[in-house]
């Protein structure tokens, strides 16, 4: 699962690697352990990699402002986008971004699917996510059986190569 937040001059891409027992999030290839300790009246206290940070937070309809250690950070809320796709792929192969278990197959080999149609539901880090078709096409192969586990990077579904577009 990933989430993006935009700060002036910089975008941050957050990948959630684990949710429990401790939240583990990757930013710029570095894994951080994050814990929210307290939050009241605009004050927050969080622990990042074992270090405590206390500051103020203002949340408005379009921004989140953070004041921490004498510095101010402004984030654009509209850019805060969650992507629960949990997969990567070229379009022909749908791969798992995290290890998990395949819960349900929604298609069979040979099924014609539209872009965004449900392919399989997987469970990773105790969260079920439905994987959608990255493009329209035909299912060539389903690699994982229902109830079977898979590793990070495993191919879940292969789609038949796209036919050349006419016209």
């Amino acid at each position, binding site marked *: 699962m990933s989430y993006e937040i935009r700060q002036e001059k910089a975008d941050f891409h957050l990948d959630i690697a684990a949710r429990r027992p401790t939240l583990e999030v990757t930013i710029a290839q570095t894994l951080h352990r994050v814990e929210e300790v307290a939050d009241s009246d605009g004050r927050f206290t969080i622990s990042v990699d074992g270090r405590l940070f206390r500051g103020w937070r203002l949340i408005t309809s379009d921004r989140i402002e953070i004041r921490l250690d004498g510095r101010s950070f402004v984030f654009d809320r509209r850019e805060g986008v969650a992507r629960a796709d949990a997969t990567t792929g070229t379009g022909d192969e749908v791969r798992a971004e995290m290890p998990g278990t395949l819960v349900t197959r929604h298609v069979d080999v040979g099924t014609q699917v539209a872009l965004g149609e449900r392919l399989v539901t997987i469970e990773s880090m*105790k*969260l079920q996510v439905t994987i959608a078709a990255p493009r329209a096409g035909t299912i060539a192969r389903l690699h994982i059986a229902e109830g079977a586990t898979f590793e990070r990077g495993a191919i879940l579904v292969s789609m038949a190569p796209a036919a050349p577009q006419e016209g």
Partner: protein
Amino acid sequence: MGLFNKVLVANRGEIACRVIGTLRRLGIDSVAVYHEEDVKAPHVALADEAVQLEGMVPSGAYLDSGRIIAAAIAAGAAAIHPGYGFLSENAGFAEAVKQAGLVFIGPDADVIRLMGDKIRSRDFAATNGVPVAPSVTEDDAGDAFVAQAEAIGFPLLIKASAGGGGKGMKIVRNAGELAENIALAKGEAGRYFGDSRVFAERLVERPRHIEVQVLGDGTGNVIHLFERECSIQRRYQKIIEEAPAPNMPPELRERICAAAVRLASAARYLNAGTVEFILGADGEFYFLEMNTRLQVEHPVTEMITGFDLVEAQLRIAAGEGLGHEQKHIRVKGHAIECRVCAEEPDYGFRPATGRIGFLALPDGEGVRVDAGIVARQAVTPAFDSMLAKLIAYGADRETALQRLGEALRKTAIMGLPTNLDYLLRVIRHPAFAAGILDTGFLERFAEDLAMPDRGDPTGIAAVFAAALGDPTFRDLVHRVPEPHASIGRWRN
């Protein structure tokens, strides 16, 4: 003659609040004035009475001398305190207040006029033995111009009489280059301004802005409350001030303060004023101007001398005199002030507007906050961008600096851009800590003072703090997104 029963404060923001604070402490009733836009402003709530001023534009209301004087009379106030800015250096206002039978808390109108005139005040200073930057004009010197310019000494600045913006300006460091540079400057001046006349003045390198606080009783008796250093400026406006000036030899301090007293005494100065000087790296100092009012940065002087300058102003205006002898006034400790402004230092200090969505002001030992803001208040382009002043006092400069840093860290003004981060970067700069200051400081160290990299642990923690404040991220962490929960096969 006792102190006044009631005083009208013809100002707004932090300075109105600060004046009302002293009035309250002395048991004097206060009258605030305000424009409709300021109806919820703290100075209105703080005063015993408040009178709304009708006006087309907000800032115009505070400049409406007729309505303000009428409000003072209607409220039964005996005196008007003008604060700084607005009507504080308006000689016509001071006169009108007096004519209305009220007391203007400040100097006489003629002294305001004298000091408000660049050329007259400079001549007045020179006549009274106060150093002014040596200069010679081509008009006055004629054929002797080159010789007289050389006599001033180097480095010299040659400037176009008609000009500005650096056109026709030359810096000359020795006599050999003088004639040639005057010719060049004249050529440029002629081309740009159609007027080739130039003048020469002593160039002050690495100038420091040093000013002296004075109090006068109007009969020539003047005391000084020592100097302030105000060299940290952006766009020719001060943002950090301190007292006493760091690295100031005692003998030089004595001479500068004596010069300020000499000037104020010669002017038979009444009430509180400030004499500003430019101090060169060579120890030479020159008169710049005199401000005939309370200064924004007056708190640093109060903290090192124990004076309440507003109280001193009230007592002098009420005819109680200076009440202090110079020999009993001592400097104790060190104080530094910074001006918190709604502006963006990382974008050329452009002014910012917005609404204060969250406000936390610091406290602590030696920390003073002069603020005129409240949470939810709108900061509009109608008024000055200064929101508050943070002042820290310590037994020595290092302690004051450390406390000011803590105070800045404990301050949060969110909802609009401020210079809080920048101020902390400035006071933590090694050259600032060393007290090696001049008016070119912020430009010289611009690179060091730029926004730091945000990929450090604090920057990353800020990202997490923001993400955890965003329901979208919280949903990812704590909950199952709706479509999947509805499938009903989610297990924990």
